[in-house]
């Protein structure tokens, strides 16, 4: 009961933050969608990091570590610790500047202007929006499940999902980007502080970690399954898969909610601390999660893959008091509720890339822009809730869609890089890369579905999907690989290839547009002054 009460207090606090942000804001579109590009360095870092944190960082990562061991940290955390700050450094800062200078609020607005492309921009809008939707639905589903679990069934899945959807919708509706950023910053502080406290409390209760690790190291091989000592190394992760995972964090900056968040900083200088501290924040969250996942393997052996996702909750329940457990439960809710920035991003995209682009703001004025955004927030949140209810038992579909979305967004990174740094790039190159990405996502989905019948069990070697093609397409327990590499790798390389090849044989945008985005050296300053006046 106590954990459930703490979670409800937490929900009330985030709701208050959203309403408080509403009082601080103006009613313009730029204020609602980007907090008037005014976030300070601390809120910018914490909210950007919090936006990127999903339930997977805590629950999924520890569950995966329970099954495959400490290698999960290198697989997902330390790869993100270098790739995400690099992409924020090179792409985020440029998006921020171009957004401020030319008034862009979304990636599509920038791409449309940069390549003089309306229709292709709409196509990119459609695929990015489609890849974002599953996250929002999973967020509502996760909220319902977590609230039901924390309250021990007192709150049903349906009511829990509704509470989460209404709370998120309310603070995004009122607070817009300012409210969302403050809530995300608050959530990140909650995580960083109480996560560390829980880690030490569990360590204390267990009498330190030395003995448990030594036991795991020397545990005898069970009659069925691999030796537990493998969890202390990377033996359960194929090297090709480990390398492929380096491409996944490229998706981060292509997620609309992250790219839009990059445009909220007050000054470019705010990016400095963000990119330096980002790797440390990742380590602070993921290191205890992975470590505890491995520890749980010795405490609760024999859990199935679905059950192992709750090992952190099991450890908390077993080794901490109800208050700490409740606060951590609130932290887990915070992760699950990461859908706030995604709802806002989708609303921003609908308003800017569709409503404004097709003349809505011009016809109805700037205030209508903010209200259109709020209307979209309500529509998106309620639609997500209805889908979460209708497909209650089909969460795996959306989880799968999210996995594909990571690869899809990663494969769009070359498009953004080309737009920002390659003058010769063209809209046709962008279209070719986007079509390639979409095609690959569908092809992977098809291969995964059609090979379900031959999928090997966990720990068994991969099986060729088309024996005549040898190792080209292999089916693993829960994935499809291309010569052993995850599809994301050929997707990113292929996207870059099509971007370059098609750009080289198609005409560039007009000289006026090129001069706008690539002013001759030394003229950036005068260009900026001119655009200000």
């Amino acid at each position: 009961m106590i954990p459930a009460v703490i979670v409800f207090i937490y929900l009330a606090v985030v709701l208050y933050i959203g309403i408080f942000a509403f009082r601080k804001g103006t009613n313009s579109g730029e204020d609602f969608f980007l907090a008037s590009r005014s976030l300070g360095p601390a809120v910018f870092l914490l909210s950007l990091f919090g936006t990127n944190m999903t339930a997977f960082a805590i629950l999924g990562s520890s569950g995966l570590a329970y099954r495959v061991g400490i290698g999960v940290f290198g697989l997902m955390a330390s790869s993100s610790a270098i790739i995400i700050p690099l992409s924020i450094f090179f792409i985020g800062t440029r998006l921020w500047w171009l957004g401020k200078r030319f008034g862009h609020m979304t990636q599509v607005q920038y791409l449309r202007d940069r390549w003089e492309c309306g229709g292709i921009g709409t196509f990119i809008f459609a695929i990015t929006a489609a890849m974002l939707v599953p996250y929002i639905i999973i967020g509502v589903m996760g909220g319902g499940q977590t609230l039901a679990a924390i309250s021990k069934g007192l709150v049903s899945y349906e009511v829990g999902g509704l509470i989460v959807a209404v709370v998120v919708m309310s603070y995004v509706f009122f607070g817009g980007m300012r409210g969302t950023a403050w809530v995300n910053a608050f959530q990140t502080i909650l995580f960083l502080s109480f996560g560390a406290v829980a880690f030490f409390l569990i360590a204390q209760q267990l009498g330190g970690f030395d003995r448990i690790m030594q036991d795991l190291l020397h545990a005898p091989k069970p009659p069925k399954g691999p030796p537990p000592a493998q969890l202390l190394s990377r033996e359960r992760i194929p090297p090709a898969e480990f390398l492929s995972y380096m491409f996944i964090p490229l998706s981060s900056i292509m997620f609309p909610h992250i790219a839009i968040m990059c445009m909220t900083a007050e000054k470019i200088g705010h990016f400095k601390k963000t990119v330096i501290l980002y790797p440390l924040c990742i380590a602070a969250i993921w290191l205890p999660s992975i470590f505890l996942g491995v520890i749980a393997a010795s405490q609760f052996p024999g859990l199935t893959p679905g059950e192992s996702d709750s090992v952190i909750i099991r450890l908390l329940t077993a080794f901490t008091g109800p208050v700490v457990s409740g606060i951590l439960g609130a932290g887990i809710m915070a992760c699950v509720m990461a859908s706030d920035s995604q709802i806002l991003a989708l609303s921003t995209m609908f308003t800017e890339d569709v409503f404004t682009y097709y003349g809505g703001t011009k016809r109805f004025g700037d205030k209508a822009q903010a209200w259109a955004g709020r209307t979209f927030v309500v529509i998106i949140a309620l639609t997500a809730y209805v889908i979460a209810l209708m497909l209650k038992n089909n969460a795996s579909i959306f989880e799968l869609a999210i996995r594909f979305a990571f690869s899809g967004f990663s494969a769009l990174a070359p498009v953004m890089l080309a737009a920002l740094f390659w003058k010769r790039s063209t809209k046709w190159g962008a279209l070719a890369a986007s079509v390639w990405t979409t095609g690959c996502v569908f092809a992977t989905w098809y291969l995964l579905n059609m090979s379900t019948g031959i999928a090997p069990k966990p720990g068994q070697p991969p099986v060729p999907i088309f024996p005549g093609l040898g190792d080209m397409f292999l089916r693993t327990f829960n994935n499809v690989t291309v010569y052993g590499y995850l599809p994301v790798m050929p997707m990113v390389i292929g996207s870059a290839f099509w971007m370059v090849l098609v750009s080289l044989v198609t005409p560039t945008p007009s000289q006026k547009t090129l001069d706008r985005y690539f002013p001759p050296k030394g003229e950036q300053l005068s260009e900026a002054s001119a655009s200000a006046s």
Partner: protein
Amino acid sequence: MKWLLTTVVIVVLLLHQDFWLWTNKTLVFGFLPIGLAYHALYSLVAAFTMWLLVRFAWPKEIEAADEALNAQGRSTAGERS
């Protein structure tokens, strides 16, 4: 400097693939698996790499242009008032 920093970034990216520790189960300080300790240290190296980029490869031209834009905005606002 540009080439030196590019080399540093490439080396850091390559260091992520620590294949030499693949099966090593040594426990650092008696409790921390060496593979995990390596990647925790790697996160610190990543932070240091970013510090190097911020220090020596910061897009100063954007910073200067932004200041010019802000100054222009302030003077325009001043004229209006």
